[in-house]
């Protein structure tokens, strides 16, 4: 176990850096979330919009 005490900021940063390694997480969705966080645009509305875009792309093949 990691004994290092982490700040909330560190926890969130590490979460977004490793999100795509979590089992069962779709890589495209993980990339979108990490990008939104990096650009400081992580809001529920932006997440829903990006997911819709991914869906449309997938449908178009």
């Amino acid at each position, binding site marked *: 176990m990691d004994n290092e005490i982490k700040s*909330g900021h560190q926890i969130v940063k590490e979460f977004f850096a490793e999100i795509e390694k979590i089992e069962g997480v779709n890589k495209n969705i993980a990339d979108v979330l990490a990008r939104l966080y990096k650009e400081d645009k992580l809001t*529920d509305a932006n*997440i829903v919009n990006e997911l819709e875009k991914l869906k449309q792309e997938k449908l178009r093949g």
Partner: protein
Amino acid sequence: MVKIKHIEINGLRGIKKTISVSLDSSQSILIFGENGSGKSSITDAFEWFYNDKVEHLSSEEIGRGGIEALRNIFLQPDQEAYAGLKFSESKYNSIKKLFYNKSKLSTEIDNSTKEFEDYINSSTSENLILRYGDLLKFILASKGDKLRGISQIIGYEEVQKIKEIFKRAVNDVKREIKLKNFEGQTSNRQTQMLTQTEQMIVDDRGYFDAIKRLVEPLNLSAEIMSHENIESVLKTIEQPENRELLALYLSFETTLSKLDNFIILVEKTKKSYNKFIEKYQKIIEDSEIDMPEILVEIELDKILYKMESDIVQMGLKFEDYLKHLNKKVEDIRKEFRKDAEKKAKLGLVLNKISEVEKIVADEEQVAKEVAMILDHYKEADPERARLHAKNVLTNEKIFQFLEEE
């Protein structure tokens, strides 16, 4: 880890003259004293040094995050107030000053290195001061407020914030799923897939397996482990050269299935032929007829004629064939005599049944059969072909009648 080793304060809050406190200890340090002795002034100096504000002094009356109330009131306007810190690593040592610049309260820090700036920035993300009032407020707070308070202390707020964003996004997606009736669409798709694959599909795995079975006869040697695999298989099938190959495979499949049906048909025919032979033998055995020689001779003629026709059909001469067998026509007639007798006998019996039961071949069918014979045997005599066809078809009808009986 960087540690504060020493603090020197001058002109801040209750401290007018310089005080110097050594904090160079490996253990916790407790500062105690009577009310008004200046304990809070030390913590205020710390808070101002790191956060550039003093939270408990901030109010509407006191502006700039409490800084207006930070200077000792007995200081002369030209006198500087300051807090100086010394660290375990001297590169962070610095003095922060609070002074009037043209009657405007200003602050200045004498360490302008990038390292010090980074140190201050990372320190501000932590909560350095816990006051008695805050602790009391925390104890009396509700469960939710306590969680928020702790989150604030350990910097967990950001995690909470992200969690809330995800929660709202999940709810939005859930609402959309409900609104657009995805469940209905899913069930429709499932019905569709059930019809096309004859299998109930509820997950990707089942879907991939069903597709695998569907494309197996095409021998595409493609792996079906993902939706992308399926798309690429579809693209492969759509390519023109593969379409031809596919058509070939499909026609091969159809031929195979037709062949299967043909085998069944042959089996059926074999069975009914065996039945026919059985009946034929029985009729011959049961009938007691004196056979006129002429009829046996006619049957022998027929057998020889058929034999000769077959030999000629194969491109040979009947005489050569006989020579090859080292036989004469008379020998053949002798060999087939028993068969001819049987046939003649059967002919008589069948004639009688036909007469009694009034069973005659259909003229239209006879004409068709004759046309077929003449087409096959170009040299055949039309009248003899007609007689032969009429006989065969009448006999078929009689056997059919006997079978029904």
